[in-house]
């Protein structure tokens, strides 16, 4: 049984039409899984469903054998699921250190050593700890966003397009950081537009089309699959 799984999820926003149809996504600890697909395929929606940001009509979300389909997003955070949204993923008017502290809001005991761990992971943040996040560069902001999400010591980290809008160099750097996080035995699930690069660092991937699983397999398999290549990876 996979560590974190969304099983046969069907649902949409509010009373609107279903965006995902019987979609299944799972991830193990210490694994990076990417969700890919064309625009409007329901990639982000699938992820948000697993976080509890939309109500499922059917299907279930399970972490470590426990059904959390009915829990609110806040309660899922308490189960160790952390989420980095695509936009507005930092507190721009607060300092780097305060952002990390807010990430640890639910942690009641001593969390200063967790902050130090984050600084070890992202050394640049340590230098800029007293600076307002709104003044940092795009890549540094994404590191703050990752750091904030890691403060609860999550077992599952979900990333919604972590490299959207950053330069290719920064993108490589961010992927390196994501691999570092994976090595701390966290299950990482991400939605990515940069499909090739994402598959390169992913253990497995899912390709969604119109809200349904179309292809799935290891990163290499998908990269070499001619059908995936021709439709999503540009030949």
């Amino acid at each position, binding site marked *: 049984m996979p560590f974190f799984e969304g099983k046969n999820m069907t649902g949409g926003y509010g009373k609107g039409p279903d965006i995902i149809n019987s979609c299944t996504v799972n991830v193990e600890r210490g694994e990076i899984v990417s969700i890919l697909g064309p625009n409007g395929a329901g990639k982000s929606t699938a992820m948000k469903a697993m976080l509890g940001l939309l109500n499922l009509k059917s299907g279930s979300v399970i972490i470590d054998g426990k059904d959390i389909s009915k829990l609110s997003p806040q309660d899922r955070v308490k189960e160790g699921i952390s989420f980095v949204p695509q936009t507005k993923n930092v507190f721009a008017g607060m300092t780097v250190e305060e952002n990390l502290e807010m990430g640890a*809001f*639910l942690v009641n005991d001593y969390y200063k050593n967790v902050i130090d761990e984050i600084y070890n992971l992202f050394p640049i943040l340590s230098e800029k700890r007293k600076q307002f996040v709104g003044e940092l560069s795009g890549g540094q902001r994404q590191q703050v966003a990752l750091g904030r999400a890691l403060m609860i010591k999550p077992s599952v980290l979900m990333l919604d397009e972590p490299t959207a809008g950053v330069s290719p160099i920064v993108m490589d750097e961010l992927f390196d950081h994501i691999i570092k996080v994976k090595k701390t035995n966290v299950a990482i699930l991400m939605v990515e537009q940069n499909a090739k690069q994402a598959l390169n660092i992913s253990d497995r991937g899912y390709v969604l089309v119109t809200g349904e699983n179309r292809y799935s397999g290891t990163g290499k398999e998908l990269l070499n699959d001619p059908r995936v290549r021709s439709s999503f990876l540009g030949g």
Partner: protein
Amino acid sequence: MDFLNALILLLNYIFVPALAYGSQLAIGAIFVTLIYGILRFANFATGDMMSFGTMIAILFTWHFQSIGLTLGFLPTALLAIPFAILIMGSYMLIIDKFVFKYYRLNKSPPVQLAMVSIGVMFVTQAVVRIIIGPSDRRFFDGEKFLIKASEFKDITGLNEGLAIKSTQVITIVVTIILVSILFWFLNKTKTGKSMRAYSDNEDLALLSGIDPKKIVIITWMIAAILATIGGVLYGLDKSFKPFTYFNNMLPIFAAAIVGGIGNPFGAFLGGYVIAFSEILLTYAYKKFFMYVLPESMEPDGLIQLLSTDYKFAVSFSILVIVLLYRPSGIFKGKIL
């Protein structure tokens, strides 16, 4: 000697009164800015909430006076403030529960909430008038002056006296203490930081596990403290009249917007910017020029830029200028 007299004149009629008035506006402006930043609407009931809090404080003051309880040379109203804050806070939480909460949960646009707050304003205004009436009331007791103008003249031998009212000193001291505690709370405590986080990015605050219900309650409690203390200080220094409190909303909003709405420190300084502009522009400088200029150049008129009747025009003009040229305020707040 003449130069000293001119200086004392400005201190007495401009600097000291503006500092006290500015402090009173600053407290109101922080109230506006906190509600705007955290609950995300312009609260038009600000002035009347302040008047409600002051009314409760006056009722307690009268009660304490009737049982012979006073604070000696300090005004009895200071003793009434904590009790007034409790009632004010309950009033705000009740209003929130029955009025604002519905619109907040429905994620109504801020304009709608602002309109709702106008309704709250009318109701609060009516409640105040029913309970205490619309007339002017003075509830100050204790020692009126710290330094009297005549005493100052006797000591220094100058022509001009510097009178410092005890209410002015109380206002400034209380403001410094209150604002320091508030900034310490917002910047150093976990709860305060979570309020700033909620104001900064609501969705991310929710994802971080910050409880919005708790934030709302704490915001209203702080608002109750600010409204009551700000209102009582103004009432002690001048007098309590519900209509004046309603009118004060304009300079208070101007202060909050000048400082950058949503930014408490900006609102604090904005209060002084508005107070000093109002008083500097409406003061008659004739006497000042009589001291500093030679007799041959003595001015004929009052040398008053604006009649005091137009003091609201000053805040209004500042408001318009700021919104036109720097809509985010002096210190960057949210853009309106």
